[in-house]
């Protein structure tokens, strides 16, 4: 019995990190109303940035946030400004331009394979960092310390984004745009700048997720793909556009993945996750907390 509690606990911690990764996706979706297929790749980029920052300076992995967050924000901001904005402008009347999904898919392929070209296919990790392999003993249970850090980072990030959206002027503009972009632009809000900011924010969050992974996870060019599909599943589970839903959805996946192998092979748990996803898609497409979009 104890090991199930232990697995559940570790599943929740890892799941919070999945949720953190999905959080960026949901922020972008909430505002632009498009799924960013390059999200996993952005996470991968964040992981490499963190990896090199830590390797070159030897600081604590979480200190790399100082570099990762601004770098990723600017990266996302520019990505949206240069590649995606022109499409929104030319397809104004389209409610949900498929073209944007396609462009982000192209970006996914470019980033993943550029990473492969530059860094090679090998798995990298930071061997000597203060978090690696650390375990916390609670009674007879072992809890992973780096995942615990990740868990709290996820909660803190979600809270910060929530506060940003609710309490700041800029956040209110973002929310106005996400509710009705035409009405928002009538009120003098520059819709495209808001898009840039939302995309930058989502990318920065992907970077934060990358930082939480670096202390204990392998870094390789296609690592994003693993998270990409998980993030899609999580946001559908939690409800596209919902912050709390992303975290909860992530934890559900995390628990299934860590408890499941007690009862079946690990790959079957993967199949269960897909089945759950499809069940939601068919039965409750708005997810646990989602708004029912008119599409």
């Amino acid at each position: 019995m104890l090991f199930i509690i232990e697995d559940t606990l570790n599943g929740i911690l890892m799941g919070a990190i999945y949720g953190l990764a999905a959080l960026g996706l949901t922020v972008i979706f909430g505002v632009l109303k498009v799924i960013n297929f390059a999200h996993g790749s952005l996470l991968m980029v964040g992981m490499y940035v963190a990896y090199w920052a830590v390797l070159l300076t030897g600081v604590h992995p979480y200190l790399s946030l100082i570099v990762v967050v601004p770098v990723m924000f600017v990266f996302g901001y520019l990505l949206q400004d240069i590649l995606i904005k022109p499409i929104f402008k030319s397809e104004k009347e389209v409610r949900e331009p498929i073209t944007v999904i396609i462009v982000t898919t192209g970006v996914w392929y470019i980033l993943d394979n550029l990473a492969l070209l530059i860094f090679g296919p090998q798995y990298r990790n930071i061997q000597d960092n203060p978090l690696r392999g650390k375990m916390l003993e609670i009674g007879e249970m072992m809890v992973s310390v780096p995942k615990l850090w990740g868990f709290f980072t996820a909660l803190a990030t979600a809270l910060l984004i929530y506060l940003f959206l609710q309490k700041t002027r800029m956040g209110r503009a973002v929310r106005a745009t996400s509710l009705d972009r035409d009405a928002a632009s009538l009120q003098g809000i520059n819709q495209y700048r808001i898009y840039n900011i939302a995309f930058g924010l989502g990318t920065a969050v992907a970077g934060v997720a990358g930082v939480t992974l670096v202390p204990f996870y392998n870094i390789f060019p296609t690592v994003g793909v693993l998270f990409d599909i998980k993030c899609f599943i999580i946001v559908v589970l939690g409800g596209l556009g919902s912050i709390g839903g992303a975290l909860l959805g992530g934890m559900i996946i995390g628990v299934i993945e860590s408890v499941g192998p007690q009862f079946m092979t690990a790959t079957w748990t993967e199949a269960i996750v897909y089945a759950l996803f499809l069940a939601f898609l068919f039965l409750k497409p708005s997810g646990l907390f989602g708004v029912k979009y008119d599409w």
Partner: protein
Amino acid sequence: MLPSRARKLPLVLVALAAFGLPLVVTSATYLHILILLFLYAYLTTSWNLVGGFAGVLPLGHAAFVGIGAYTSTILSLQYGVSPWIGMFAGALIAAVVGVIIGLPTFKMRGAYFALATIAFAEGIRVMFENIDHLGPFQINGPRGLQIPPLKTGLVHFMFADKEPYYYIILVMLAAVLALTWAISRSKLGFYLVAGGEEPEAAQALGVNVARAKLAAMAMSSFLTALAGTFWAQFTLYIHPKSVMSLDISFEIAFIALIGGRGSIAGPVLGALLLRPVSDFSRIYFGDTLPGLHLIIFGVVLVLVMLFQPRGLQEPLTRFYQQAMRRLSGGREAAP
């Protein structure tokens, strides 16, 4: 308008050239590349029925390739059924699966459908990687199925040389192009385009949009599965990663989008342009610059979407029509 004979002539020439090509191209490597090119043109044209005309973005067509490949292979390995028959059995199963995916998702827009198709395809792949037996059927999990090259000949859909495969896929491609052409001019074609562009207006004009899309999805998955059998018989070895991977689904979609989805020439054009890029960069840079062709795919895709969102087919068609007009105009001027 162009005189119809002037428009048909180039088509006839291209068809003749395609049929004569193996006389010139004798290298097995090049023939292999050509076969894959036509295979992808076929797959993309099948995808285009739903991804192009119906205006949605399916990103899981590899599942249908896999269903086709596995069905005919299992039937022939375990029950001695000719792959030609297994081919259509697989296609029927794929059509049913396609409809099952489409039923709940076609009512929603874009992103959900794309996500559902990815998840479905990945789910099926993961399942195949996990099971050795599905009821009485041997699947062999990740190890896949090997087709022993025992009996060759047309009935067995197995040949020692590459030429027969070349001709089979060429005929399949010609057939699916003709079918697409016929559909694009039919009521269904009109209804798909209308429902894809403005669903509400289409419904007000009597179009049951979801039903039209389901019909397209059924046909598209049926046709895609046929190519799965071809793939199995051509490579004689299938496993979940080879016939069901996400990469196949994405490559099909990329080729269609770059060539120009929703047009008949687009998918073929896309395959003509992109397949050589991927084959040659794999041959020449595979070791030194892995993934180069995927970077090229990505860059071309982004550029095309930014500057030519209806695909490369559009400027090329315009150019072609101008050239034809000039040619035929010149002929009329000089009696």
